[in-house]
Structures are given as structure tokens and as C-alpha cells.
């Protein structure tokens, strides 16, 4: 195993702990918005999709890259907008 790989594994392991810790006290009413919000965050795959689409140089690459970008963008944009719509509803109960 190389040092570079071990560094990546370190990010991975630490992120597991942070991910669990950060939502451990979420109330039931926020389960769905939280699911939807984290759903938008994994749309970060758009970074990967842009890397492969932008640097593609053959038809297979073009096709895979283009489809991946469309899907990932839908995930990001739709994810954030739909979460905002859910949370918009919570506004009304300011006292």
C-alpha cells in the first residue's frame, strides 16, 4: 500500500465518524429533509462526471461523460431544490 492510498483511506475513515456524529441527534420530523439534503450532497459525483466528460476524446467517452453529467446535475439541482421546498413549510410556525 502506498502513502497516497493510505491518505485517501484516512479521509474515508475520519469521514465515517464525522458523518455518524453530525446527525446523531436529529429529531424524527427532520428525517425526510435530512435524507433529501444528504441526497443532494452525494451529487458531488458531478465533479467526477465533469472530469471524465470534459477530458473525453472518443465516442464512448463522450456518451458516458454526457449521460453522467446529466444524471449528476439532476441529482445536485433537484436534490437541493426539493429539500428547500420541504423546509420552506417549516417557516410558518415561528411563534
Amino acid at each position, binding site marked *: 500500500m502506498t502513502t497516497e492510498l493510505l491518505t485517501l483511506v484516512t479521509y474515508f475513515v475520519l469521514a465515517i465518524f464525522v458523518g455518524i456524529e453530525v446527525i446523531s441527534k436529529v429529531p424524527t420530523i427532520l428525517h425526510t429533509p435530512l435524507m*433529501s439534503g444528504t441526497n443532494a450532497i452525494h451529487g458531488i459525483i458531478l465533479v*467526477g462526471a465533469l472530469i471524465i466528460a470534459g477530458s473525453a476524446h472518443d465516442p464512448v467517452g463522450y456518451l458516458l461523460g454526457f449521460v453522467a453529467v446529466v444524471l449528476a446535475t439532476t441529482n445536485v439541482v433537484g436534490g437541493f431544490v426539493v429539500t428547500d421546498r420541504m423546509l420552506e413549510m417549516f417557516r410558518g*410556525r415561528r411563534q
Partner: protein
Amino acid sequence: MSTLLLQALYLVAAALFILGMKQLSSPKGARRGNWTSAVGMLIALLATVVNLGLLRRFTFTGSVLALVGVAVGSIVGTVGARRVRMTAMPQMVALFNGVGGGAAALVAVYELSYILGTHPSPAESFPSVFSIVVGGISFAGSMIAFAKLQELMTGTPITYPGQQVVNGLVALAIVALAVYLIGFSNLALAFSALLVLALVLGVAFVLPIGGADMPVVISLLNAFTGLAVAASGFILDNFALIVAGTLVGASGTLLTLLMSQAMGRSIANVLFAAVGSPVAGPAGAAGAEGKSVRAGQADDIGTMLAYSRRVIIVPGYGLAVAQAQHVVRELADLLEKKGVAVDYAIHPVAGRMPGHMNVLLAEANVPYEQLKEMDEINDDFKSTDVVLVVGANDVVNPAARNSPGSPIYGMPILNVDDAHNVVFLKRSMRPGFAGIDNELLYDPKTIMLFGDAKESLTKLVAAVKAA
């Protein structure tokens, strides 16, 4: 842009994701939290694009296609998310999750197709194989979840004998193929087969799960997509993908457990017990046959409500479908003016997603202090004159307490059967989402008011006014 600056911006993005998730888990900061994450996303995306541009890594056709792709995806995402009705939110989340999983699998397919020609080490090919399998399962599973909730196919579990064995065999075949691909071969055929099998398993694994359990499944698939994205990060040596993907993978797993806990069930029971199947045999269906129900008139029920001391309203999915949240508030306000104490009892999984009822009633400006959680109000039903159940069923079904054979046995329910009178506003005698008959409907103290929830409530408002 130097690599150093790119990494620094990725770090900022990762910090914003964590901060956003933290804010998302408390009611006060939730909406802000969503935008905090969105800003993090924008930073990561811009940094990536500028960096690629400066490195002159873009091909002309490739970058045009990427731009068009972003435009198409943005339009589809915005229109889809804006147009969707509140009742259809869960399937929309499933859809957005599925396409993310699909994108992760495609990125991995692309990378794997490049390294296949060389002789990749297991450390290089493992993340690709993992991302293809998990992303593929997430994509196919989410599409089935979407189809079930959107009622493009039946929402009840689809089961056949030996189903779990078959699914287990497919899973085994995937593992064997994956090991073969990582360890020995770079056959394109084996790798296409892997993708196909992953899609098959995604479909097969969600088919036997009933509509009521779908939010839990979507949460699990959400965690899957997160892990597939993290694996893609290992392929591309990308810090942002690894950290963001893992955050979602880990928090999604915990959230899945919390959701099944809120339903009083184990995750294994949710995934493999096919809860919501039409119950066959003497134990299930026979109970309901030959019993009579009492159908009431709005006028009588209105009078009963107006002369009660305490009324509790139990909202369910039917309230959401009928968009009756404003009328129900009008009725509650009217009763309060007549001196009746009115509360809403909110079951944690009422509706089709946790928090559904809170969101809906908040929209109608129902005062927050009138919304009571299950544990808070369950002992009050004993001293309640009338419980008005509006379009809810499974969450008040005493079978969860009394019949060990019932699929929902053990789920915490609202103790509506303790009240002096129960009024069900229902469209028909059809069982609830879980597909189980409810003996409370046949109880002598129960009155049924058949019809659309909104119309029935409007009639009740008129009746209370007249009383």
C-alpha cells in the same frame, strides 16, 4: 490554479457540507443548512472546472457536451423539484438518488474501461468494481421505489417462493464476478455481466418491500449512492468525492436505522419481511368478514364534536392527498372557540415520510404547540371524548399491540382505541398502506364518515357552526 489551492477549496467545501448537515438536523437551522451545503457544492464544482481549464485538460467536444449536460440536468432537476406535489416528495427523492447512483456507476465504467487494457492492481480496480455494483444497485432500486410510490406499478410487495434465496444467489454471483474481475481478468464481458447483475439485484431487492416501508429503503439506497460516490473518489484520487460520499454513506446508514427504529421494527424486518403483503389464510382476512360498521352523518358527528370537552385529531396520508390541512385547521379553530380543547396527535411515521404531517400542518399555520408527539399524548386518549382520525389507518391499528401474527405487530401506535368515541374520516373500507385490516373500524364506539377528507371536514365545519 495550483493543486494546493484546489485542495484548499475542496476542504472548504467539505467543511460546509459538514456544517450544513449539522444545521439540517435541528428544526431552527434546517433551511439554512441546506443552502450551506449548496454553497459548498458550488465551490467544489467551480474549483474543479477552473482547475481542469487551467491544466488544459478539456477537449472541445467534451467540454461542449459537459456544458449541455449541465444545462439539461439543471432544467430537469429544477422543473421536477418545483412541479412535484407535497404528497409526491418521497418518490422525487428516490428519483434524484437513483440518478446520482447511476452517475457514480457510469464514472466507474468509464475508468474501468481504461484500466482494463493495462494490468491494474487490485487497489486500482477494486473501487471501480465497488462503485459499479453499489451505484448500479442504487440506480435500479431507486427506480423501482419511484415506480411503486408513483403507482406506475403496484405498491404492495411482489413476492414469490424462494425469493430471498434467489436474491442471495444473485448477490453471491456478483461477489464471485467482482473477485474474478479484481484478481484475475480484464474481460470486458465479465464486467458487463457485473453491471447487469447489479441492476438485477437492485430491482429484485426492492420488489418485495411494501410502499409504507419505502422511505426507509430510499434512505438505505441514499447511503449506497454515497458509498459509490466515495469509491469513485478513490478512482479519481479526489478528496471532495471521498469525503462528501462517505459523509452521506455513514449518516445515511445511521438515518436508515433511526427510521426503522421510529417504526418499532428492525432493519432486517423492513427489508426482508415483505410487510404489507395481502394477508392470506385464516388468521388475517377472516377477522373482518361479517362484521358490521357504523356509518354516521356529518350533522350528528358535528354536534358530538361541538359538545365535547376534549378532541384529538389524528392526521394521516388521506389528509395530505385531499389537501385538507386548511379545512382541518378551520374546524379546530371553530371548536376551540366553542371551548373544546383540541390537539393534533402526530405519529412519527404518519403519511408517507417521517415529518410529513408536521410539514403539512405547518403550511396551514397550525400552532406548533397543538402538535403533540406520540409519547407526549398517548396517555391522554383515555380522557378524550372524540378522536377524529383523518385519513390515517395503520398508525392507529390496535393489531400492532394485540395480534402477534400481524405484520405490523410491535410498531408503536397511537392509543386511539382508549378514547370514548372514535370517528374515522375515510374514503372507503380499504385497508391502509400496510395492507392490513383494522379491527378498530368495526368497534362499537367507532363511527365512519365516508368520503373525501376535505369534503367531509367541510361538512363537519358547517355542522359544528349549526350546533
